[in-house]
């Protein structure tokens, strides 16, 4: 694999939280227009659309219709919440191959507006593994049961405590309290609050689980050559890596060795960087266990060490390892596929735009998406410095 050729030149969120009277299409368009404006690009400059998750036969075509574009290149590949980290890889490759010049990656969903409770059973044909082999056992779906199984295995192998898991949620809340856009901004959360919240599927409490909010976002990418002439400081894609370990949790071979091991190794190699080079880290936090397993598999600590690694304020504001500085899916927003927000926050940290929650001296950032039931993993490394040819 060669070095990446592209940079991120614009990012934006749509309305977040509880959004009324606005469709996901309008929210995606709103974020796309804002991200293009930031870059100094026009809608007509866009010739590629990457999106996932809109419940329609072809999400990218639906978005293209709404934007009024006839793009040269589209990609609706959906691997869950990490789809947008996969899209960064695909967009970089498409730009390198000359398939497109300006790519928009966008997403929005309104699970809160649509109904208070998400579906517990996926609407799928009877022959999928989930419907044929998992549903008859009563596994709590579609996500929390599988993640609880991973957490149980992790506890069994390494003896991590509920308190250590809870620290991930508490640290996320501390960051959210520095982010005015965060859904839980202004609401304190203690370790005891997490441990005393109702157990849903052991060992995961309610407060070990991500939020359900409305929201959306957009990321604009173009070649690093073109990026140099645009309005904003370009954020270079330094490396990326992808991994698919399984679709259904029943096909997962090892619940504590995740795809992050493979995806991050590829990303580090492409960038010529390692875990120690990262100044700020954004890890998909669908559940507290997702963060601990990702920290280990991304190489920030050894197997079984993540519970101790996050203690002592290390991942809280002011700590030595700034993690999920937006407040994450646990406390900032989570419309169903959080991966796009990992990229947006990483870019803003690298541009030093984060106000109270800004990590000083950020040069390199890692965004790691996890999709499905630890099914898909993609790691994106970003930098605000020229990485050389």
């Amino acid at each position: 694999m060669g070095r990446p050729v592209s940079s991120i030149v614009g990012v934006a969120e749509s309305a977040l939280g509880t959004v009324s009277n606005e469709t996901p299409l309008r929210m995606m368009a709103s974020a796309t227009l804002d991200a293009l404006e930031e870059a100094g690009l026009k809608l007509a400059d866009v010739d590629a659309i990457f999106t996932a998750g809109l419940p329609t036969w072809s999400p990218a075509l639906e978005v293209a219709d709404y934007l009024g574009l006839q793009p040269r290149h589209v990609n609706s590949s959906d691997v869950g919440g990490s789809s947008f980290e996969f899209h960064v890889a695909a967009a970089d490759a498409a730009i390198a191959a000359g398939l497109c010049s300006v790519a928009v990656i966008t997403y929005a969903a309104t699970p809160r507006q649509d109904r208070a409770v998400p579906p517990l059973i996926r609407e799928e044909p009877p022959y999928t593994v989930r419907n044929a082999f998992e549903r008859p056992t009563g596994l709590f779906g579609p996500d929390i049961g599988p993640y609880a199984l991973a957490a149980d295995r992790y506890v069994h192998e390494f003896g991590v405590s509920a308190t250590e898991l809870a620290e991930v949620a508490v640290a996320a809340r501390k960051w959210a309290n520095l982010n005015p856009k965060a859904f839980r901004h202004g609401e304190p959360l203690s370790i005891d609050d997490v441990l005393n919240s109702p157990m849903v599927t052991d060992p995961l409490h309610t407060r070990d689980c991500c939020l359900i909010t409305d929201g959306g976002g957009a990321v604009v990418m173009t070649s690093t050559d073109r990026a140099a002439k645009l309005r904003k400081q370009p954020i270079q894609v330094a490396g990326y890596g992808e991994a698919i370990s399984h679709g259904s949790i029943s096909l997962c071979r090892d619940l504590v060795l995740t795809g992050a091991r493979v995806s991050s190794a590829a990303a580090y190699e492409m960038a010529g960087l390692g875990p120690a080079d990262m100044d700020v880290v954004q890890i998909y936090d669908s559940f507290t266990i997702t963060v601990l397993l990702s920290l280990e598999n991304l190489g920030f600590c050894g197997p079984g060490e993540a519970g101790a690694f996050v203690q002592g304020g290390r991942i809280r504001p002011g700590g030595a390892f700034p993690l999920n500085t937006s407040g994450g899916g646990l406390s900032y927003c989570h419309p169903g596929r959080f991966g796009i927000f990992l990229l947006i926050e990483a870019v803003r940290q690298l541009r030093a735009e984060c106000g109270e929650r800004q990590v000083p001296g950020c040069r390199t950032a890692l965004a790691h998406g996890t999709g499905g039931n630890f099914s898909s993993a993609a790691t994106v490394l970003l930098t605000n410095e020229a990485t050389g040819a």
Partner: protein
Amino acid sequence: MPDPLPQDPELTTYFEGLRRGELLLQRCDDCARAQFPPRIHCTFCGSRAHVWEPSAGDGTVYAKTVNRRAPESAFEHLVPYVVAFVDLDDGVRVLARADAPPERVQTGMRVQVVADPNPPVGDGLIFRIRDGSETQ
């Protein structure tokens, strides 16, 4: 009336087995490895030749979770209940619900997986704790 079975040679064989109280596993005729769930081919070597073997159901709990809420109404009378991955001695991993209260189920313990005689939804597996496998 049980739900209609999927119209698929391997799935039909498997689920008809469950309805007779048998847990049938596919074993490859070429590389001799067992696989689950059943399919047209062996995922290890690609062979389409397999035999069906009844499993004794003996295995070890790989991971478990306690459902404090039911994912659908058919399971409400069972709450709280354990769902676990069981690594069968045959060499495959299956998902099953515990036919035992949550406090008795431990990850790493020996259990026996059998067809669920009263499946709340579809056709599935349950497991029972083997005598002498509980630690104090």
